[in-house]
C-alpha cells in the first residue's frame, strides 16, 4: 500500500511541479497535458492504495490520521479532476495540484496506523454509521479546499481589476465568473455534505452512548465551520452575496477546516485518532 501511495505522491509532485512551471512560463502552455496525465496516474495509484488498504484491514480506511490525510488528498484530486474536465482552467490546476500533493505527502510521511481493531470494536454496531460520518466530512472538506483555491484566485483577480495593476499572474487567472461559479458549486456541495456529516455524527453518537454532544473541541470547531459556511450560503441565496466578501469567508472557513484537521490528531477528546 505504501508503495502505491509513494507512486501517487511522486506523480502528484511531478504533476504539480510541471503544471506550475508550464503555467508560469506561458498562459497557454502546450505541454500541460503531461501534468494532467501525471495527475491522473497519481490518482489511479492513490485510488489503488486506498482500495488495497481497505482490503487489508477489511474496513473503510478512515480510522487513523494517516488514512484521513490520504483520503482527503484523494477526494480533492477527484474533485479537482472533475472540475478540470468541466472548466478546463489550467491555472486552477497549478494551484489545486500542490494541495493534493501536500495531503498525499502528509499521508505518506505519517506513521502507519496502530492496531485499530480496538477502536472498531468500541464502535460496535454504529461503526458503519460513524464511517459514513467521517466520509461525509472528508468529502465536505475536499469541496471546501476547492472553494478555498477558487476564493484565492477570485481575490487576486478582483484586486488586480480594481487597482488596475496587472501582475505576472494576470494573464493566467480564470475569469471572475469562473472563480465564482467554481466556489458557488463547491460551497453548495460542501455545505450539504458537512450538514449531513454533522447529522450522522449526532445520530451515531446517540446510538453509541446516548449522548448528542460530548463537548469535544472538534464538535465546537465543526459547529463554527458549519456556521461560517451557513452564513455564506445564506447571504448568497438571500442577498445575492458574491465576490470578494464571499471569497474571504470561504478562506476563513477553510482555515477552520485546517484547524479541525489538525485537531483530530492534536486535541485529546472523543474524536482524536492515532
Amino acid at each position, binding site marked *: 500500500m505504501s508503495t502505491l501511495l509513494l507512486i501517487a505522491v511522486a506523480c502528484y509532485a511531478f504533476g504539480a511541479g510541471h503544471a506550475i512551471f508550464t503555467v508560469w512560463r*506561458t*498562459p*497557454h502552455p*502546450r505541454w500541460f497535458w503531461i501534468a494532467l496525465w501525471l495527475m491522473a496516474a497519481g490518482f489511479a495509484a492513490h485510488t489503488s492504495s486506498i482500495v488495497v488498504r481497505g482490503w487489508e484491514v477489511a474496513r473503510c480506511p478512515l480510522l487513523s490520521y494517516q488514512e484521513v490525510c490520504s483520503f482527503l488528498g484523494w477526494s480533492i484530486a477527484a474533485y479537482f479532476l472533475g472540475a478540470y474536465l468541466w472548466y478546463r482552467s489550467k491555472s486552477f490546476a497549478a494551484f489545486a495540484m500542490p494541495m493534493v500533493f501536500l495531503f498525499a505527502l502528509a499521508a505518506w510521511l505519517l506513521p502507519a496506523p496502530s492496531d485499530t481493531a480496538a477502536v472498531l470494536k468500541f464502535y460496535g454496531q454504529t461503526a458503519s454509521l460513524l464511517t459514513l460520518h467521517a466520509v461525509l466530512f472528508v468529502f465536505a472538506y475536499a469541496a471546501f479546499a476547492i472553494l478555498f483555491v477558487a476564493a484565492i484566485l477570485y481575490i487576486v*483577480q478582483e484586486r488586480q*481589476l*480594481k487597482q*488596475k495593476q*496587472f501582475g505576472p499572474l*494576470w*494573464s493566467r*487567472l*480564470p*475569469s*471572475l*465568473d*469562473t472563480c465564482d*461559479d467554481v466556489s458557488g458549486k463547491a460551497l453548495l456541495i460542501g455545505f450539504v455534505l458537512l450538514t449531513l456529516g454533522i447529522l450522522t455524527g449526532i445520530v451515531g453518537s446517540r446510538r453509541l452512548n446516548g449522548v448528542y454532544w460530548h463537548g469535544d473541541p472538534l464538535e465546537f470547531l465543526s459547529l463554527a465551520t458549519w456556521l461560517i459556511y451557513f452564513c455564506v450560503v445564506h447571504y448568497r441565496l438571500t*442577498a*445575492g*452575496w*458574491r*465576490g*470578494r*466578501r464571499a471569497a474571504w469567508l470561504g478562506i476563513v472557513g477553510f482555515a477552520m477546516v485546517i484547524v479541525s484537521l489538525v485537531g483530530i490528531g492534536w486535541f485529546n477528546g472523543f474524536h482524536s485518532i492515532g
Partner: protein
Amino acid sequence: MRLGKFTSPLPPVSQTGVQLMNVLLVGINHTTAPVGVRERLAFSEAGLPVALQRLLVGGSVSEAVIVSTCNRVEVIVVPSLPTAEAVEAVTTFLCDYHDVPAGQVRPYLYVHQSSAAVRHVLRVAASLDSMIVGESQILGQIKRAYALAAAANTVGRHLHRLFERAFAVAKRVRTETGIGAHAVSLGSVSVELAHKVFDHLTDKVLLLIGAGEMAELAAKCFFESGVTSLFVANRTLAHAQHLADCFHGGGRALGLDELPARLHEADVVVASTGATTYHITPAMVRAALDRRRYRPLLLFDLSVPRTIAPDVAVLDNAFVFDLDDLQRVIAANQRERRREAERAEAIVEAETVAFMTEADRLDIGPTVAALRERLTDICAAEFERHRKRLGPLTPEQEAAMRQFLLEGIVNKTLHPLILGLREAARQGSELVDLRRAFALDSVALKTDTARDNDAVSTHEEPANQRLYR
C-alpha cells in the same frame, strides 16, 4: 567509354546560367510611403489576375505574386533577367499599370533580393512588418493574394515553396510566441478585460452610451467576441436607433433618461459621449448592482470629460476603466508584444536560413552531382592513360591510388566549386561567375560550356592537357 560518360546530363542551363532560386521583391509600405502614394499603387482584387498576367507577359519574370493591402503594395517575382533589369521591369510595370510617373514612385520603393526577399516575405506573413505588430489580418490577406496568383497561374515551384513556408512560419510564430496575444486597441483591450470578468460574452448584454464612432468600434469588437444583445443609449434617439440597427437587429435604442431604469440589465457598459456631466452616478450603479444581485458590472469610459463618475469604482462588483486605464493596458501590451516580436524575429531568421539552405540544395544539388561525376570520369580516364608509367603495383597500391588519390583530387577540386555555386545562388548571379572561384578557366566549366555547344570531344582533350601537364 569516356565519351559516353561525358554526356551525363547537367540540369537545364539557361542562356545566362543555371536556374537558381532567386526571388525579387519590389514594394512600398506604410513606413516608406505616405498614404497618397500607397493608394495610387494599390491593386483592386478584381484587377489582380489581369495585372499578374500582364506582368508575366513581358518575359522579365517567370513567377509573380502581388500583395496589396492598405499598408503595403509588394510585387514578389522570380526574375528571368539579371536583377537590375528585372527590378526595372517590375517598377515600370507598377508605374505603367497605375499610370503614375516613375519619378514619383521610385524614391519610396524598396527592393529585396534573394534571402533578404525571403526574410521580408516571412516577416510580413508573421505580422512583424505590420503597422500594429502581431495583428492577424495580414496572414489572411497574403493567403488571398497567393490564392489569386495561383488561380491566375503565375505561381511556379519557387514562389509556391516560398509562400507555403511563409504560411507555416506565420503559424509557428503565432503558436510559439505571444505576439498576437496582447490586445493593443481600445476595443480589443476592453474585450480582453471583459473576459477577465466574464467567462464568455455570448449571453452578456452590452450597453453603449453615446452613438459615436468610438462606441461603434467598441461594439464591433464585442460583437466579434460573441455578444449578441445590445442597448444603445443616446440623447438623440434616432442616432441610437441607427447604430443599434447596425448589429444584427439585436440592438435596442434608449433615451438617456431611461438609463437608471435599464442599467441593471447590462453586463458591460461602454460610454463615449461628449457630455460634461456624469451620466452614470454611484447611486445609479449601486441600485443597478442590487437589482442584478451583485453580478459584476463592467464599465468602460472612453470619453473625456468622463461620462461615468469615478466614485463608481469603489463599489464592490463594479469595475470601471477610463481612457487612461485602457491606454496604460495598451502600452503594457505593446511592450509585451515587442518582447515577443524579438523572439519571432529569431524564428524568422532561422527559418530564412533554413529556407535558403534548402533552396541551395534543391537548386545546385543536381549540378554538383553532375560535376562530381564528370570530374571522377576525367580522373579515372587520366589514371588509365598513364597507368603504364607507374610500373607494376600491388592490388592494394592500385586500390589505394584509385580510392585516395583520385577521390581526393575530385573532392578538393569540387569544394571551391560548390562554395562558388552556393554563393552564386545566394546572390542570384550566373554560373559563369564561378570561373572566379577557380581563378582560371576550370575543367568543369570548360566542359560545361562545351556540353552546351555539343562539342564535347573536341574541347575535352586540350582542356585536360592544360590542367594536368
